[in-house]
């Protein structure tokens, strides 16, 4: 039946191209879904997945068999998302002085995001850490696994989840009042 992910990853780290292809094929959809959840936009998720795909072979060298492949992959994704945000911030700073064209474009962009459904908007209001944590837990990971991915303690995850819930509830109440 199926070779385990861990076997595939170890083989891929040793240079087995077939194993790598098979591994990526197996996890691409899940990876994409996760990217969507932490970025909240389809195009952004596609780009982020592309970043991850491009960098994944080099990252494989750091894969240690102790970790589950999914856990490791999520960690790579969280880090890649972080890098991407940092790059964006720099870019935004650099382009802050652009003229009306950029202002208009940003406005149009803001307009589109308003049309996004409540969920995405709500997710966007959360801080990055809260959003990443929530995305992991919504992807059927236990708090312990999420903690391993994020590199924090399990207690922190549980706290973040309750914070996220609180924030979402507040948002909902606010909207109900309007």
């Amino acid at each position, binding site marked *: 039946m199926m070779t385990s992910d861990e076997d595939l990853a170890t083989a891929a780290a040793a240079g087995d191209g077939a194993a790598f292809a*098979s591994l990526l094929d197996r996890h691409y959809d899940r990876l994409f879904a996760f990217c969507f959840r932490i970025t909240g936009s389809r195009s952004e998720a596609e780009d982020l997945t592309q970043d991850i795909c491009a960098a*994944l*072979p080099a990252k494989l060298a750091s894969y240690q068999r102790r970790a589950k492949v999914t856990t490791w992959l999520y960690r790579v994704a969280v880090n890649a998302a972080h890098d991407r945000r940092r790059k964006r911030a720099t870019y935004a700073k650099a382009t802050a002085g652009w003229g009306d064209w950029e202002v208009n474009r940003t406005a149009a962009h803001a307009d589109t995001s308003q049309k996004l459904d409540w969920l995405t908007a709500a997710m966007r209001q959360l801080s990055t850490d809260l959003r990443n944590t929530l995305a992991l837990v919504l992807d059927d990971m236990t708090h312990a696994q999420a903690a391993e991915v994020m590199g924090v303690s399990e207690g922190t995850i549980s706290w973040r989840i309750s914070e996220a819930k609180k924030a979402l509830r507040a948002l909902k109440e606010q909207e109900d009042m309007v």
Partner: protein
Amino acid sequence: MTDDLNDLKAMMDKATPQPDAARRAENIALAQKSFADLQGSRDAARPTAVTGPKGLWTGVKTMLNTITTKGGLTTTTALVACGFLFLTPQGQDILRPPSAPQITMTEFDNAIPQPQIETGPLTDDFSEDAIIQDAPADAGAELILGPMEAPEQELSFADRSRPAVPKELPQVTNEALMPQMEDADIDEAMRQQQTRAVQGRQSLNAAPAAPSEITAAPRIVVPAPSVDDVTIMPAPNTETFANDDPNPLKITAEEPVSTFSIDVDTPAYAVVRSSLSRGQLPPAQAVRIEELVNYFPYDYPTPDAGEAPFRPTVTTFQTPWNADTQLVHIALQGQMPEVAARPPLNLVFLIDTSGSMDDPTKLPLLKQSFRLMLDQLRPEDQVAIVEYAGSAGQVLVPTSASERTTILQAIQSLGAGGSTNGQGGLEQAYSVAEAMREDGEVNRVILATDGDFNVGLSNPDALKDFIADKRETGTYLSVLGFGRGNLDDATMQALAQNGNGTAAYIDTLSEAQKVLVDQLSGALFPIAGDVKVQVEFNPAQVAEYRLIGYETRALNREDFNNDTVDAGELGAGHAVTAIYEVTPVGSPAQLSDPLRYGANTVAETSDELGFLKLRYKEPGEAVSQLIETPITGSSVPGTEANFAAAIAGFGQLLRDDRFLGNWGYDDAIALANANRGEDSFGYRTEAVQLMRLAQSLSR
């Protein structure tokens, strides 16, 4: 997860879009390219102007540039001057104590082979000579055993300082395949090493009384489990075989009718052969006796022209393994139509190129097999190739078989990689076959796989339905299995039986020759469809009966006359054999007692043992035709029937020898050997060899 999170999760799942297929393929291709680029380039960083190689002069210059104090300069200059002084011959005498022995270079050279033994402070009270003379002689040979073994000279010094950590260790952990060894592992390795060192030393301590044993001491060193053993586990065997429990004994008075479909598949025999050749008895579930029996070509009487497409022959003779029972041997011989008159073929090869096919016995064998088969095709035949691995793709558009080079190139271009999506490929192969369809031509999809249907419809039942639907449209399916360890025999069977095709397992090129060259026309041209067999036994003559094999082919009694129920196909020139073991009334071999209250007085109306009925459809017809013939008393078995009986016995020995009594491999071998017949292809000789192998393995 709490309830409000569940709501959120549901929303989230709904909102999450599917990845864009094109983008997905693009990204995966990008990753693979970057993966390929990375291979072989993991060298050290290239030296640049900034990080250029640090030579001696660069270092000295840097030093001189940085040390600016006068004191520093004086000190270093003084050090260099002293150094030069010591290099002169007189300077070297300065440090040498006058009493120290003069060591010349020649002496030193001699000392190299056992440096530690000559210079080390030996704390153990054994003779140095013993070691110097005896140990190295055997040591050389022993050392080759394991990479982690410390040279045995080090063993005697293990107590002196740190335990001997062999130099090989860091290299082993650097191997990319191995997981990084943690400190704990190294500690563990060191501890083992130390223990072994101590053991070695103890044995040396014990040795002085008998110096000759010292040479044996290194042998006590148990090779540490090599890293390969620990980390590379053998791939789990994930084979599944389709089989039911062996047919039970039936009591004629209670259930006089036995119905089954014919089966011309042969994978079970090839699986048995491949297991036996690897030195293992095959799993009992893998042995389907009817496939063993039907593997061999038989010289049964052929039908006359103008008759039914096949001719049944029934013989009854004494059971080889039980003198008190009879075997009813039913043979169907299909006619061999003129090869020249065969209709053109449209073949779609559906080839599994998933990563698991990357094995000498899989994809490369498949390529060779198809080359063999290509020679059997005619210019008017058409060939298309579809591969499936992750995403299905057409490798070769329908091409006339005369364009050999194009087809061969397409076959050669196949490479293994990716996971398997059996159904996506199947759908595409069928649509290609649809496009090739023309009146009067034979359409067939030939699926070649190691039996893995990883993604998509992995449930045999769902696949069955899909194939059965397609069968109605006139496109048949044959399945060729390759490789062991992952063989999903259940799915293969389900596909072939529902696709009106044959399943064959190809383990060697000679099997490919048999299936794809010698018997190709039988595999590709059905002469009779939905062939069903029904036997009604006469309770006045037969007390008990048992069908040998055909467990997966059993039909209900009412299915026999129901033309919508699918059954096996008979290919051109195929022979099918079915064997019943029957116990005559009054025989001492009867296993069941007659009922006390039942009506067990059966009027003796006929001396027939039973009545054989066969139903079949002409190719393309929807209504079946009937052949009937009575089964009469005992006769003398011919060579063919005897050989079939020997194989049936062999199959039961491998699977379940409950009914065989004391009859064993010796008897099976003798019977098969005596009835090898002409055997122009050597299959029967091979069978006898396999029996002998099984006999040795089963002891």
